[in-house]
């Protein structure tokens, strides 16, 4: 992706810098939203409405759980899975509103549940939310990790590949398990380039080469083509996977941060993925443009460096 930081972004960064500092959320707000209960989720040994709880419980049960095996002895993740959509609304804790189902933060590290976003990037996030159409509304692919908190999907597994099929936009993501390196840095993809390996019974996947177009949620959290996304999939009972994902994008975030939630097997008899030819009737972006929104042009690491430098110069004055 070419660098394309329009002047208005830099202007917004400069003029809004003080406002962001004034509005910077206080730390330690993770407990602001009550969590209704920690009852065991049906067909699962752990609750899953609290990421901290499912993380601790999932790791504990994974110590003794014996996952199903493939013919080559690996944990078998094949099957249809799905999860909560709360992270799609907002990675952080958010209330139930007409627009949102609400829920606690999915961030388990840092412990306060807040996205450790850099001040300049918080300005950009607010601009994303206020000015640009979410790529998801336009039927583009959701990227990694967002496609795993959007709808239902199916995992197909062979000794050399795990293929993730999403019903949403009929997206396909292929995780190579044969040890090959990532593709070259100039190849940028909506779903990135994923390489996986097993650490014990945990599938560990590193994804790079995303194109800077997908966002992480509907409130504008974003990442660039320089992001390295590390996911850990660990089964802790027959129908549940503990999903941990660490985002590392040093230009945008002050430190890596980790999200966690449960994926549950779809045990509905006869369940199958269906076609979702998302683009065929896509009309929302036209409606949104009518009220002033624009297509999201993406944000490259080069864009990020320019915006960050401009912001820091403005603060130094």
């Amino acid at each position, binding site marked *: 992706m070419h660098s394309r930081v329009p002047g208005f972004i830099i202007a917004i960064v400069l003029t809004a810098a003080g406002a962001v500092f004034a509005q910077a959320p206080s730390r330690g707000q993770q407990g602001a939203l009550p969590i209704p209960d920690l009852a065991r989720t049906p067909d699962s040994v752990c609750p899953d409405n609290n990421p901290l709880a499912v993380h601790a419980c999932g790791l504990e049960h994974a110590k003794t759980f014996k996952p199903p095996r493939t013919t080559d002895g690996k944990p078998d993740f094949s099957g*249809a*899975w*799905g*999860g*909560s*959509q*709360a992270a*799609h*609304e907002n990675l952080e804790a958010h209330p*139930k*509103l*007409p*627009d*949102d*189902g609400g829920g606690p933060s999915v961030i388990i590290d840092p412990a306060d549940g807040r996205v450790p976003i850099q001040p300049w990037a918080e300005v950009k996030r607010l601009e994303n939310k206020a000015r640009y*159409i*979410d790529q*998801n*509304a336009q*039927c583009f692919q959701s990227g990694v990790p967002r496609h795993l908190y*959007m*709808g*239902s999907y199916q995992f197909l597994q062979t000794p050399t590949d795990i293929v993730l099929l999403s*019903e*949403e936009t009929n997206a396909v993501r292929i995780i190579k398990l044969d040890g090959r390196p990532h593709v070259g840095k100039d190849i940028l993809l909506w779903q990135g380039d994923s390489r996986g390996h097993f650490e014990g019974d945990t599938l560990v996947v590193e994804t790079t080469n995303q194109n800077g177009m997908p966002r992480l949620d*509907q409130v504008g959290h974003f990442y660039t083509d320089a992001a390295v996304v590390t996911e850990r999939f660990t089964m802790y009972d027959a129908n549940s996977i503990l999903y941990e994902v660490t985002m590392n994008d040093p230009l945008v975030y002050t430190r890596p941060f980790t999200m966690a939630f449960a994926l*549950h*097997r*779809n*045990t*509905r008899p006869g*369940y199958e993925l*269906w076609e*979702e*030819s*998302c*683009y*065929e*009737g*896509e*009309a*929302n972006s036209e*409606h*949104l443009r*009518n*009220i002033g*929104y624009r297509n999201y042009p993406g944000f490259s690491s080069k864009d990020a460096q320019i915006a960050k430098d401009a912001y820091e110069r403005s603060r130094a004055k």
Partner: protein
Amino acid sequence: MSITRFALAAAVASLLASAVPALAHHSLTAEFDTDRTVSLTGTITEMKWTNPHAWLYINVKDEKGQIQNWAIEFATPNQLYRRGWTREDLPAGAVVTVNGYPSRDKALRISSLEVKLPDGRTLFAGTPTDQRP
């Protein structure tokens, strides 16, 4: 079939607090005014089972007696099918009542929460926020 009455009732969103919010593909509040709800009764002119959202079109008579064709946004066809909807549920000519959020651009368009069918059934039209199996 003749056009039925027009009813436009702005109300606080809590009026339909039991409805599950949020369309899966985009931020609802960006496009629709979720502080108000609208109730429309009209005659179906067309139902489009398209992705990423199905659209229902109904003719509604306004307060001046003029017929207006409203567009009603639903969830994805797959989500409607899995909820038990069929293509026979919304035939052209049927009279339905829909509740939903009005468009911010003042177009004749709402994001639907539920649809009341002629046989008395009420169908939930939005997208569940929880996609767990």
